[in-house]
């Protein structure tokens, strides 16, 4: 897709790390797939298709996570996001059982405004990204791997971890309380 190529070459052309980019070749496809499916989601008007496009996008992202030396995150991404959460969405779509597709989106002032703002946001994020990688701002090193991650979770982040479990429980109970009620009591 042109969008992604444009973005990557822009970044590559601007920096002096051109040399490091030669490995990007095989990455071109998952990246393109990811961005493409998100674009497809925007364009499609069928909610079920949207959900499936997202599954695709999230799976691609899972692969990228793996490339970033985060195998656990990659697995979680595929299992939880692409698997569980999106299935949940599909269930919801099934429940609505919408016969007709969503109506055509009209190009309103708001949409136009949103597009402009989205572009501005992208520009800002891109600048931020480039600056974040500027020399001296990071000190590369090897992550500790899966065991280190586990150790971190149960030491430094123990409270956060426990609280998240509570959060899940609360979400469970909340969902039951909200949606479980029969209509009209």
């Amino acid at each position, binding site marked *: 897709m042109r969008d992604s190529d444009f*973005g990557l070459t822009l970044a590559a052309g601007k920096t002096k790390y051109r040399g490091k980019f030669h490995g990007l070749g095989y990455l071109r496809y998952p990246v393109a797939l990811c961005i493409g499916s998100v674009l497809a989601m925007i364009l499609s008007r069928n909610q079920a298709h949207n959900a499936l496009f997202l599954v695709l996008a999230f799976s691609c992202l899972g692969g990228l996570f793996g490339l970033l030396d985060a195998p656990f995150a990659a697995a979680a991404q595929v299992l939880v996001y692409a698997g569980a959460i999106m299935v949940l969405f599909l269930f919801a779509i099934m429940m609505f059982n919408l016969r007709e597709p969503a109506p055509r989106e009209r190009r309103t002032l708001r949409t136009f405004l949103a597009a402009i703002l989205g572009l501005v946001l992208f520009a800002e994020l891109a600048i931020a990204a480039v600056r974040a990688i500027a020399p001296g701002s990071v000190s590369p090193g090897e992550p500790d791997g899966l065991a280190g991650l586990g150790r971190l979770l149960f030491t430094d982040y123990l409270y956060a971890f426990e609280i998240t479990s509570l959060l899940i429980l609360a979400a469970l109970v909340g969902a039951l309380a909200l949606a479980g009620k029969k209509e009209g009591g």
Partner: protein
Amino acid sequence: MIPPAAFLLLSAVLFSLGVLAFFVKKDLLTQFMAVEVMLNASNLAFLAMAKASGQAAGQVIVLFVITVAAAEAVIGLAIIVLIFRQRRTIRTDELKDLRG
């Protein structure tokens, strides 16, 4: 060795697309999906920076984000279902109850 800048840029692209989707779409469900895209974009950024800086903390955060996103999705969908049951619509331009 994959340069982190590439991933950060991808993250920016995805995030902006998520934002765009949120505003273009008019049904709650798809807008909700757009939010998920933004969350994923930020996850990507986290991992990229974790890799660049060699700290595992970024990965931990990602795990938390995924967990919270799961909880959020559950509650969010429950709310959407509830709204649909009451209003028979999930079109956001027809829901104006926020107006006091």
